[in-house]
């Protein structure tokens, strides 16, 4: 890893390029380490101080202890990301299949371009769109129906929000935000399905869908899972859109349509940080460390799935 192990004697260009690429690699590790060190050191007081001093914001539970402060936030983070993934994954896979297997070249590239553009929209714009457009529309047209007809499910029970600033709205917006990365990677792995296998299926008399089921989906399965993990990682860390949309409370709740929603770690930091001082800042940074760890776990899982890919 260290650049000084073996000094290669070669043409100048080779040596320069080698130095450049090694230092680029090292820079990434240094940046990662710097962030981790910062998080750990600044978070430390939140773990070591007397637990009754921990808490952020005057009214919602000063002195509750770090664990009971971070748990609802961690839950909200994972919950929002999971719901978003549940919505985004089938759509993304469907889009990727349409683009790679069904659409004509022109439609495929236009649609692919459009999906990629979704990734270019700043998250604060998504947040504003979520508040001003999506939330009222869903609150008027969809949530009452869900509450009335599916209210027996814990997810849709409770008093349905009239503002639409619910976990569901946040999850839908998150889903749209992670759609591009999942569909882009799925598209990539679907395109790489060997023509040999597709032709084998077609020559056996498979219809298009049967061919997809026999070859494209099994071949792309691990890639789709890895893509979803990356999307999940993105949804976990998403800040602005959630901060704008969600009407938060200090609860752990599965209900998706109410005004009492668990906040996410990233959104909570964004909302609380301007007002915080002293130990409150340390506590917020400690929640950031928890998020860092959670994202790290998700990415490690994605890596393992993608690395375990055995396709010939």
């Amino acid at each position, binding site marked *: 890893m260290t650049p000084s192990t073996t000094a290669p004697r070669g043409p100048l260009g080779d040596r320069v390029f080698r130095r450049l690429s090694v230092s680029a690699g090292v820079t990434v590790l240094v940046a990662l380490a710097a962030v981790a060190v910062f998080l750990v050191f600044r978070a430390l007081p939140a773990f070591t101080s007397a637990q009754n001093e921990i808490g952020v914001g005057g009214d919602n539970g000063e002195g509750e202890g770090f664990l009971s402060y971070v748990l609802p936030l961690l839950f909200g983070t994972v919950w929002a990301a999971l719901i978003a993934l549940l919505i985004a994954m089938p759509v993304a896979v469907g889009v990727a299949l349409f683009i790679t297997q069904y659409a004509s*070249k022109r439609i495929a590239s236009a649609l692919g371009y459009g999906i990629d553009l979704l990734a270019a929209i700043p998250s604060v714009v998504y947040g504003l769109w979520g508040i001003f457009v999506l939330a009222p529309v869903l609150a008027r047209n969809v949530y009452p129906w869900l509450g009335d007809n599916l209210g027996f499910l814990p997810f849709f029970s409770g008093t349905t929000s009239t503002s639409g600033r619910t976990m569901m709205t946040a999850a839908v917006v998150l889903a749209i935000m992670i759609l591009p990365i999942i569909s882009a990677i799925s598209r990539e792995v679907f395109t790489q399905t*060997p023509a*040999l*296998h597709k*032709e*084998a*299926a*077609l*020559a*056996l*008399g*498979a*219809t298009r869908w*049967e061919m997809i089921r*026999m*070859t494209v989906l*099994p*071949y792309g399965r691990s890639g789709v899972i890895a893509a979803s993990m990356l999307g999940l990682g993105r949804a976990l860390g998403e800040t602005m859109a959630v901060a704008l949309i969600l009407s938060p409370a200090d609860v752990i709740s599965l209900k998706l349509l109410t005004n009492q929603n668990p906040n996410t770690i990233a959104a909570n930091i964004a909302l609380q940080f301007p007002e915080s001082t002293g130990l409150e800042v340390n506590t917020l940074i400690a929640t950031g460390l928890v998020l860092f760890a959670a994202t790290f776990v998700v990415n490690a899982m994605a890596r393992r799935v993608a690395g375990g890919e055995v*396709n*010939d």
Partner: protein
Amino acid sequence: MMSETAQGTEENVMTIDDAKAPTGDHGITARDLDIYYGDFLAVRKVNMAIEPRSITALIGPSGCGKSTFLRSLNRMHEVIPRARVDGTVLLDGEDIYGPGVDPVVIRRKIGMVFQRPNPFPTMSIAENVLAGMRLNAKRLSRSAADDIVEKSLRGANLWDEVKNRLDQPGSGLSGGQQQRLCIARAIAVEPEVLLMDEPCSALDPISTMAVESLMLELKSDYTIVIVTHNMQQAARVSDRTAFFNIDGTGQPGYVVEMDATEKIFSNPSQQATSDYVTGRFG
């Protein structure tokens, strides 16, 4: 273009086949078949009668369109975007390019074995054999499925080598075994015709021999068309041989002549054929 000589041996073949095939004769006839990739005419005006229950070899230099022609016989050609054909291909007297004919149905009747062995990597040996059967959306009983697996693998001379590891992935077999697995997969659905696109070009000589002797066994039940670059192979296994040629890059390929294999390799009617089979070009 094509010289139809009624030789004694062929007459015999036909009578035997007719006796064995009460329903339909499983022969293929191509009439004025032009094959295109987009606007590019790849093969022009093929007229060819492929005799049932025999082996027909297609030979010729690279790029002459023999594989393209083969793929047009089970409508696999059109899988490539903008690829199309003009003309007719009759199977049992019916035009497979006729209006309203579903290519999927045609491909179930006309099986195909490819140049490189291509078992489905995520499926076991047994699942590979059954892949075509499952497509018909029929529910197979366990014992019926086992029977088909055994019968097809025996038919492909593979049973003894794999009977103890049917649930293991097909990709774990050797190249020659994989190719025979693909043949087993193709014959499991009991097609009428078997198309083979250079089935031995990725195999070692011993596996090649195994596949060739298998072909000779299979021809009593199936009409076999094989594309091969190996002229010894064509001479060894086929009953009739068609020689394809091309006048130059960018020109369409065409059939120079088709005749009994013996005649093509000993005394062809066309000079080009003679030059090719004696190794003077190609």
